[in-house]
């Protein structure tokens, strides 16, 4: 798998292939599925793309819970369409992973068995309809900060999938922010719901950028391969700087007493997220880890007979077509 050309006579040596690959990366050109790539690059990408795909699929759950209860038909349609988009994103990303030799069914098994991760943000509960807006604003916002640079990722299919995903995510984020603006103009109870949701989602959202740079073991290699373009801490800082004026405009308080403008740096200073909490949630001990995995597992198991039926029907059709062709 690693050296597809090596069996052919006169094929380039592994060293030659590596040099060609390094030069492509250095020129900021894209690696495509048929190109030779180092096994570590391929594995890193499969891991990252699969984790991203799993996050889209598990990420349908916290907001999906509110489709049936959305308080107006317009909000119901917006939320239903958003959660559907996430299923679509999962599909493109699994397809991108399949161009690297991975198999969607196998990746799903790995998720269900807990061998592959998804973003830890989705292990927090959605407690009111304001959470739908705050998830759009913070979680889709943080996802955009993380993902827009990935549109320039060195792996072609991933970069192209990210272009489409980022466009849709930006709609979602604006929808979320607009819901919050509307709620803040509403009743006292609605404003309290928004502030409560902001308080609960702020710190988990900052953790979406991953551990601090000095504790992020895979980052350096991914940056060298141009799979990743900015460090976790840099992206987190950008997110804070962009969110502060938006919070002011909305009229909510971000729950960080250390948050203030630092004129010398030209950026905001802010408090340190509870990294122990992030580790606990990643290890499976967040508020909803079991619930999210159980839902995904149950859906997959309950759908087993449907997938088997589709496969059996396709095989019977093919057999009938062959029989028809012979006769």
């Amino acid at each position, binding site marked *: 798998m690693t050296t597809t050309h090596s069996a052919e006579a006169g094929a380039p040596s592994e060293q030659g292939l590596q040099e060609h690959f390094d030069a492509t990366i250095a020129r900021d050109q894209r690696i495509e599925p048929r190109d030779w790539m180092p096994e570590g690059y391929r594995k890193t990408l499969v891991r990252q793309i699969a984790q991203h795909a799993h996050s889209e699929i598990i990420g349908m759950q916290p907001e999906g819970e509110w489709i049936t209860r959305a*308080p107006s*038909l317009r909000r119901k349609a917006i939320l239903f369409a958003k959660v559907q988009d996430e299923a679509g994103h999962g599909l493109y990303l699994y397809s991108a992973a399949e161009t690297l030799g991975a198999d969607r069914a196998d990746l799903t098994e790995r998720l269900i068995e807990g061998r592959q991760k998804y973003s830890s943000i989705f292990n927090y509960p959605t407690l009111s309809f304001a959470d739908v807006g705050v998830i759009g604003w913070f979680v889709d916002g943080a996802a955009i900060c993380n993902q827009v640079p990935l549109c320039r990722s060195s792996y072609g299919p991933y970069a192209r999938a990210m272009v489409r995903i980022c466009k849709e995510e930006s709609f979602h984020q604006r929808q979320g922010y607009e819901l919050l603006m509307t709620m803040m103009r509403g009743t006292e109870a609605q404003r309290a719901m928004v502030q409560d949701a902001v308080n609960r989602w702020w710190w988990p959202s900052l953790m979406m950028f991953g551990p601090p740079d000095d504790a992020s073991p895979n980052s350096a290699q991914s940056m060298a391969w141009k799979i990743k373009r900015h460090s976790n801490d840099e992206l987190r800082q950008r997110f804070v700087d962009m969110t502060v004026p938006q919070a002011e405009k909305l009229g909510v308080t971000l729950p960080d007493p250390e948050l203030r403008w630092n004129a010398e740096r030209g950026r905001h200073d802010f408090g340190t997220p509870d990294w122990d909490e992030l580790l606990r949630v990643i290890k499976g001990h967040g508020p909803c880890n079991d619930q999210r995995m159980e839902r*995904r597992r149950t859906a997959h198991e309950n759908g087993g007979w449907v997938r088997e039926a589709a496969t059996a029907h396709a095989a019977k059709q093919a057999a009938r077509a062959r029989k028809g062709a012979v006769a």
Partner: protein
Amino acid sequence: MSDDHVYLTLAEGHEDDARWAYGTGFEDPLHGVDTTVPEGVDATELAALCVALADDALVSAQRLAEWTTRAPELEEEVALANIGLDLLGQARLLYTRAGQADGTGRDEDAYAYFRDAGEFRCVRLAELPDGDFAFTVVRLLVLSSWRLAHFEQLAAHPDPVLSAIAAKGVKELAYHRQYAAEWAVRLGDGTEESHRRTRKALEQVAPYFGELFTAYDVRDEVVAVLRQVVEAAGLPMPVYRPLPGSGRQGEHTEHLAPLLAELQSVARAHPEATW
């Protein structure tokens, strides 16, 4: 494109705010259409027809929304949501038309959120719980075939608004029926288990056929479609033993009230709120 562009501009005003998601943003779904009820059209009857068709669509969309994160495959996640969104869109247009025709000026949310089960006029087949995927497919096959046949007729309705809504809906419903028919054939033909489940689903929906065919002359067309699909799936036509009563008369199953309790819960908890 700068890395930050999208997020940076978030708090700025957007001219097109109402149109962020296709089909989801219209304040007035019938903007620009002449909404005067034409002479010769009974406005009360028109409103009642729009409410009944909207109730079918809203309750069906709610059942389809319940599949979210529970579908057998991601492609089905996307397809069931598509169908649910189409029906939700139809419901919104029809409620709005009803509010214009009945003279109350009620908006779509007044019909959806502030009526009780006894005031709903959906057919009972739409209310039944989702059951397994076979039941959802078979119910969708029956309801979409019926609604499609009905909408094809309504496209010639003398009310231009209902006619336009029906003409738009025909394209959507043709896809819904196609999707359901393809799955019914796959499941009927697939494995012993899928065959058994699909056959059972047909028997479960059959008692509810009666109220679909009372008011409109679409019975023969719908039965012909069902027969064709059921034959291709290698399944027998179910025996028809009609249940008394009709959702169109406000006689519902015990499943409607809990469905509405969930649908209406947030809106009713905050009646003064704006969303």
